[in-house]
Structure formats: structure tokens, C-alpha cells
């Protein structure tokens, strides 16, 4: 434990204390403590800055011997900013090529070389040049393309929520987003909007056939304004007209809207909602993060050269929507930001939201808001693609209500097909049981053989964005137990886990932890459950080869899943 526990202090107290600390390791311990504790982004930045400053001092002492392989791309960027000698930079570039050969690092060094060798013109001036002068070798600057149309000095306000409907009804994720948007904008108005100014709003967008009632419902779920567009040809989602209409609304002038475009836009991360998010943001020439499960608004300090400008150092961006999305690994969140460039405005800041990530709010029939019909004519050309038929798919898999659930994680990775077969066999050995999987398997690139492939689909996923089960007995094989998985199963009566890694997180919420390779343990369990007795001889056989096998399989079992 570090000498200072950061959670005992607010940021104003921490600043002076940190400045007294000269030991990078001590600071890193404090940083870890903060991340595990309150994880305040401004405190994290403060500690990181102090660490960076101390590390930077060391670099100065070794000036002239810059070794890029020991630096992150960000550190390298800072380090080479002070180097004025092109030959020295060339040496750094060679070292990078010989070492890690990171394209982002090389690009930074090459840019610095270009800049040192240039005519000495100020780089900020360069950024301000029109593209024709900056790139005389190009005859059609990309900026003229019809799909690149950022605003200049645009005014951006409010949070817009695309409320998807199905068969004319708001789907749950639309309501969940309205609830979250309400919470975010209430916080935003407290933080950024003075009492005499107008508060920024939550605006719901509903497009479809006869959806006025759904717009009214959106008010009950938290919107201040609900804009709807009705046309029987839009009974079902169609990419082109839905995108054109949303963008038209975003740019329109209304009595209640005196800004150019929305500040933030949210879409559901469903097949159609995610599609629309990509197209609307393309049309508005901005960016987005997809499949988010966490959102907050905060100021942030950025050193990314594309965002700050080549001549710049660090820059504060205010009112930034921080979009957290679980990564493929299931163990990490990426926080994505959509930020203006010095010469190009990237607004609205967009996100798509995984269904089930936020609480479904209770409707408040007393809530007041404005319902607005958007007036527009559909362009025939927008209707080139048409839906000719549709049907509801069969209900999918319901894992709840079983006595036993057998769940598999990425511990099956050594032989995914065999792993699934073992899981199914164990499931069959029980009377009332079904098999589930982790998100790690759903998003994996395992090549399953045909007969088990059908069990690797999202419909069997257990966890935060899948099903929540509470069986009498939960058997977790090859699951190391990320928190998103835990919330889907930790109310089970008895939890037995099987894992090669005795330190796997799942141990902390298991009743029994079998430390072993599922490819060896599951066959024994299947036999035993089927026959009603344990085959001691077979186990003894395993024991002979046990240690060697366990050692060999540890890396594979440990790199797990969620």
C-alpha cells in the first residue's frame, strides 16, 4: 500500500502532496490505488502527469541517446519534440525500425524530421492553410467530396436519442437510453449551465409509421422534446430515408432549436440502430463509439497530436462524452472520445449503446415535454431499397429456470469443438440442465465443427449483456470470471468452477474450485454423474500424468475468456 491513500483526499489536497514525491514507483502505487478505488479521471491525470514529469527528467539526463524502443508512442512524441537535429532524428527512426517498428511511432518521427528540415515555417500556420496550398500535388482535395461536410464554428447543444421501434412500439433499449440521457443531461446542466441560461435538453427522435404516441411515450421516459416523422413507407427501417431524415432534423431550425447540430447523439447497438448510427455520423461528418456500456460527460486533457495540432502540447477539451466499451478480451474497457480537430469539427459526438446496459426507467405520465412533428417530403430516390417481406424468428434459448447450468469459457480454446462436446455431455448427464457460454466465446474466432457451432451463439450468452441465471447448481468450466460474467450467475445456489489458474477471479465467487484442466476434469465428472460413482482408478491414472499436463496447459487455460 502506498503511503498516501488517494481516496482519503480530494484533488486539491493531492496536488501539493504529489509534488513532494520524487519516487516514480511510489507514484505508480498511488495511481493503482486510485484506479482500484474511486478512479477519478482528473486525479488519474494528475498522478500520471507527475509520473511523466519525473520520467521526463530522466530522459533529459540522457539527451542524445534517445532509445525509442523503451518509450510508448506518446512518450516518444514528447521526447522528440525537443530534438532539432535531423540526423539525430534519423538515428531514432532507424532504432525504431530495427526495434519495435511501430507504424505510429515511425510516422511521428518522420513528421518531426519533415518539420525540422522544412523551411522553418510555423506548423500552426501550416494547419491554417487551405488544402490547395498545403497539398499542391493533389488536384481534387478531399474536402470537396460531398460526404465531407463539417461545420465551421458550429453551435452544438442537447443530447439526441434515436428511439428505435419494432412493430410500432419503442423497444426497451430506447427507454433505457432515455433514462440514461436524462441522468447525463441533468448532471450536465448542474455542471455547465448557469441558472440564467436555458438548460440543455434530451431530445427523442422517432421515425416510422404512425409513431406519434411513441414520441409522447418518450417524454414519459425522460425526453424534453420528442420529434417524430410518420410515413407508411417507413413502417420498417430503411437505411437511406431514416438517415436522411435524422440528418435533416439534426440540421433543421425549430422553435426550440437554435443550434446547428446536436452536441451528443445516442443510438441502440441493435442491427438497425448501429447501422443508423454509422450512417448518420458519416452524413454529419463525425465519429462514434459502437457497443458502449458506460457513458459519462467530463472535461479531459489530451496530448494526441491530431487533436491538439502539431505545434501544440496538451489541450483541455470540455464537456466530452466519454464512451466506455468492453473490448474483445472482456477484461478491458476502452474509453473512446470523439473530439474536434484544429481544422475540422467532429460533432455530434456519437455512441451506440448495448441493450440492457442501463436501467429501464419507470415512465412518468406527469412529465411534460414538447412533441413535434417533423415536416418533410420523402425523396423517391431514398426508397431504392425496399422491404418485401418479414417474419419473426423463433424465440431463441431460455437458460433460466433450469436446475443446473453448465457454462463454458475460453478455457476451451485448445480444442474448442471438444470443449463444447464435453460441456454438452455433462449437461446431458443432468436431468434438468442447459448449457451457457461466456461473451468471450460468442466474440471469439474459434472454428467450431458443424454439430456444436449452434451452441456458440449469443442466445446462450450468460452475463451483463446476455442472460441472468440463478440455478441450484452452476458449473463454470474454463471461465476466469470477469465482472460482466459474474452478474449473470452469482445468485446461483452452488457454484463449482474448473480452471487451471488458481488465481482466476471466479474463485472469489465459487463454492468449489477445481484446480485442473477442463479437458481432464469434465470427462471424470461426466462418468461419475452418469454412473453415480467416481472411478478412482481413472483418477489415479490422471494423477500420474497430472503435474506435467497441468503445467503444459496452464498458459492456455490462464489466458481465458470473460
Amino acid at each position, binding site marked *: 500500500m502506498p503511503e498516501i491513500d488517494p481516496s482519503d483526499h480530494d484533488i486539491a489536497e493531492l496536488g501539493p502532496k504529489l509534488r513532494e514525491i520524487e519516487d516514480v514507483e511510489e507514484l505508480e502505487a498511488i495511481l493503482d490505488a486510485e484506479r482500484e478505488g474511486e*478512479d477519478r479521471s482528473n486525479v488519474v491525470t494528475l498522478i500520471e502527469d507527475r509520473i511523466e514529469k519525473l520520467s521526463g527528467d530522466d530522459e533529459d539526463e540522457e539527451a542524445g541517446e534517445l532509445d525509442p524502443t523503451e518509450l*510508448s508512442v*506518446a512518450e516518444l512524441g514528447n521526447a522528440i519534440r525537443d530534438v532539432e537535429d535531423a540526423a539525430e532524428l534519423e538515428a531514432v527512426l532507424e532504432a525504431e525500425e530495427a526495434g*519495435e517498428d*511501430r*507504424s505510429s511511432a515511425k*510516422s511521428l518521427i518522420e513528421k518531426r524530421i519533415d518539420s525540422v528540415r522544412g523551411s522553418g515555417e510555423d506548423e500552426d500556420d501550416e494547419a491554417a492553410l487551405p488544402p490547395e496550398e498545403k497539398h499542391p500535388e*493533389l488536384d481534387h482535395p478531399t474536402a470537396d467530396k460531398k*460526404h465531407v461536410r463539417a461545420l465551421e464554428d458550429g453551435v452544438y447543444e442537447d443530447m439526441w436519442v434515436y428511439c428505435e421501434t*419494432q412493430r410500432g412500439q419503442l423497444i426497451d433499449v430506447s427507454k433505457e437510453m432515455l433514462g440514461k440521457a436524462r441522468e447525463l443531461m441533468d448532471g450536465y446542466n448542474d455542471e455547465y449551465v448557469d441558472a440564467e441560461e436555458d438548460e440543455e435538453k434530451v431530445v427523442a427522435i422517432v421515425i416510422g409509421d404512425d409513431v406519434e404516441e411513441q414520441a409522447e411515450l418518450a417524454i414519459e421516459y425522460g425526453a424534453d422534446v420528442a420529434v417524430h416523422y410518420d410515413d407508411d413507407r417507413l413502417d420498417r427501417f430503411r*437505411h437511406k430515408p431514416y438517415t436522411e431524415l435524422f440528418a435533416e432534423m439534426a440540421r433543421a431550425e425549430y422553435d426550440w432549436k437554435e443550434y446547428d447540430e446536436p452536441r451528443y447523439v445516442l443510438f441502440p447497438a*441493435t*442491427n438497425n440502430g*448501429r*447501422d443508423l*448510427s454509422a450512417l448518420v455520423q*458519416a452524413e454529419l461528418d*463525425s465519429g*462514434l463509439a*459502437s457497443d458502449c456500456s458506460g457513458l459519462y460527460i467530463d472535461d*479531459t486533457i489530451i496530448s*494526441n497530436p*491530431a487533436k491538439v495540432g502539431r505545434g501544440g502540447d496538451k489541450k483541455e477539451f470540455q464537456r466530452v462524452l466519454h464512451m466506455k466499451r468492453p473490448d*474483445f478480451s*472482456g477484461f478491458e*474497457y476502452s*474509453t473512446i*472520445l*470523439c473530439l474536434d*480537430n484544429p481544422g475540422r469539427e467532429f460533432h455530434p459526438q456519437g455512441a451506440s449503446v448495448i441493450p440492457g446496459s442501463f436501467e429501464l426507467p419507470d415512465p412518468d405520465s406527469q412529465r411534460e415535454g414538447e412533441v413535434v412533428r417533423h415536416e418533410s417530403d420523402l425523396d423517391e430516390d431514398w426508397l*431504392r*431499397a425496399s*422491404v*418485401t417481406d418479414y*417474419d419473426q*424468428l423463433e424465440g431463441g434459448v431460455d437458460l433460466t429456470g433450469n*436446475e443446473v447450468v453448465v457454462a463454458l469459457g475460453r478455457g476451451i480454446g485448445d480444442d474448442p469443438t471438444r470443449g463444447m462436446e464435453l460441456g454438452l455431455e455433462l449437461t*446431458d448427464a443432468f436431468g434438468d440442465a442447459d448449457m451457457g457460454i461466456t461473451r468471450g466465446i460468442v466474440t471469439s*474466432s474459434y472454428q467450431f465443427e458443424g454439430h456444436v457451432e449452434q451452441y456458440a451463439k449469443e442466445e446462450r450468452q450468460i452475463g451483463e449483456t446476455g442472460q441472468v441465471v440463478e440455478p*441450484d447448481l452452476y458449473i463454470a468450466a474454463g471461465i476466469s470470471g470477469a465482472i460482466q460474467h*459474474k452478474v449473470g450467475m*452469482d445468485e446461483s445456489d452452488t*457454484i*463449482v*468452477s474448473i480452471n487451471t489458474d488458481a488465481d482466476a*477471479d471466479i*474463485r*472469489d465467487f465459487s*463454492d*468449489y474450485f*477445481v*484446480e485442473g484442466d477442463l479437458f481432464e*476434469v469434465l470427462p471424470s465428472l461426466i462418468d*461419475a*454423474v452418469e454412473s453415480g460413482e467416481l472411478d*478412482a482408478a481413472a*483418477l*489415479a491414472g490422471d*494423477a500420474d500424468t497430472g503435474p506435467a499436463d497441468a503445467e503444459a496447459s496452464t498458459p492456455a487455460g490462464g*489466458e481465458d475468456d470473460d
Partner: protein
Amino acid sequence: MYSLVLTKGVPDFREGQVSFDEEGHLERGETPTVMNPNDEFALEAALQTKVRNGGTVGVMSMGPPGYEDVLREAMETVYADELFLLSDREMAAADTWATAITLATGIEKLAETDRGAPDLVFAGFKTADGETGHTGLQTAWGLDRPMITHVIAMEVDEDEGRVRAKRLVEGDVEEIETVEAPLPAVIVADPEFEPSYRRADHRLTLKDLQAETAERAEDYEEHLTTWSQQELNLDPDYIGLDGSPTIVESVDPIPKAPAEREATMIDPAEPDQLGEVLETMQPYAGGD
């Protein structure tokens, strides 16, 4: 019929550990590159079109020169006739929008060649590393083409100049719908895409193509065209890192949950210990 498939190289996650630098960027140098697994379905859809409707298939990717291997892999999968690599250091570290602008420009350049504009552009769903699922759509938007996404089955009617496809819709219930669009169009294939070769002559064609391609893939370089930023006439401010609206601010471990249960440790080699686990399971035994 000219089909073009967009594909991407991604780190091979099957190899295990993937590393990030401190800015949260994936360190691609550390991880072998393979074709994005979900692009397989776009390739399948393009191959089905070639087998059923004949014609030519091209494959296009944006990435460093090392992506040639990815393109060769794609050539073998889809029996492609030609390969296009959009490659330039100015294109590096692009997000989906900067990538889509680059790809759309590459397709526009292709349209100016003798080959002409592709009748169908195919893209896969999410890439394994970015997982956004946006690039195919945004490329379609840049080209102003009709698109059908999340496609699980499709057929092309050349006489009518139309494509008809079945697609998946999510929501409170799952739906399957049939969509028709005029050519030229963009198809985004779903991981559930299933090609269909019902007729015997289709299966024979498939076999012939396979033999033909094996030969072509030997010297795939002869069929590869590489275009740089200047050749594409792309303003560097609109591509790569500089043209990307989004950045990764941080990559953080998901916090560990506090311990809730005290697990009894079981050594599977000890019958007594495993027997204890079995006792908890036995009451539920009784398969068929």
C-alpha cells in the same frame, strides 16, 4: 458481374496475448496479422455470386504492405481475380470514418479503370479488433449506394439488375426480412451468412474455380495493384490519424469484483476431494 470484397487484416487473437502501447493503441507489430474472421462471410457471399452469376471478383484492403498476405489469403478463399491494396503511412491509425473515406475513394478510382465500377461491394460485419461494424456502411454512404446489411442469404437477378437478400433484425424480438435493391449496391454479410449451391453445375463451377485460383495465388503479386495517398488524390487531413474523429483515450482493466464466497479448493487427482464436488452434483443427475 463485377464484385469487390472489402477486407481487413486484424491481429490473430487465437495466438493469445495482444499488447497495447500506453496510448491504448494496439501494438500490431507484436501480433501476427490474419484476415478478419468475419470477412469470411463477405467473401462467401462474393464467391456465391461468382459461381452463380459468373464474372470477376476483386478484393480491396487498406493497410500496411504486410497486408499482402491477408489479400493472398482472401484470394484463395474467394477465388479472386485481382487484389487492391490502399497503402500509405498517411493512412495509418485511421478510425472507421477515415477508413471509409479512403475505401470509397479507392472504389471510385477503380471505377475509372477499364474494370469499371463494381456491381456489388461486399463487406463483413464487425472486425475482430475494432468491433464497430461501421466501415462497410460508411463506405456505402460515401459511394451513395443502396445497401443491404446483416445479410444471411442473397441472390442476384442480373436481368432485372437487382439484388434480393434476407437480413436479420434485432430488437425486443428477432426478425428476418427480405430486402430488394437495384444494382450497383453494397452487401454487408452477417456472421450467420450461408452460401447456397443447390445446383450440380454450381458445385462443378466451384471445383473449377478452386483449381484455377490455386495457380493464380502462387504469383498473386502479378494480380496486385497498390495505390498510395497521392495516387488516390486523397488529402492527408481526411485520412489516417489526422482524419479520424475518434481516439482511444484509455484502456482500463475492468475492476475486479470483491470476493463473495470462500471456495473449497479441489485437487482433481484426489478422489476424496472430487467426491465432495460430486456429492453436490449427484442430486441433479438423471440424463436420458
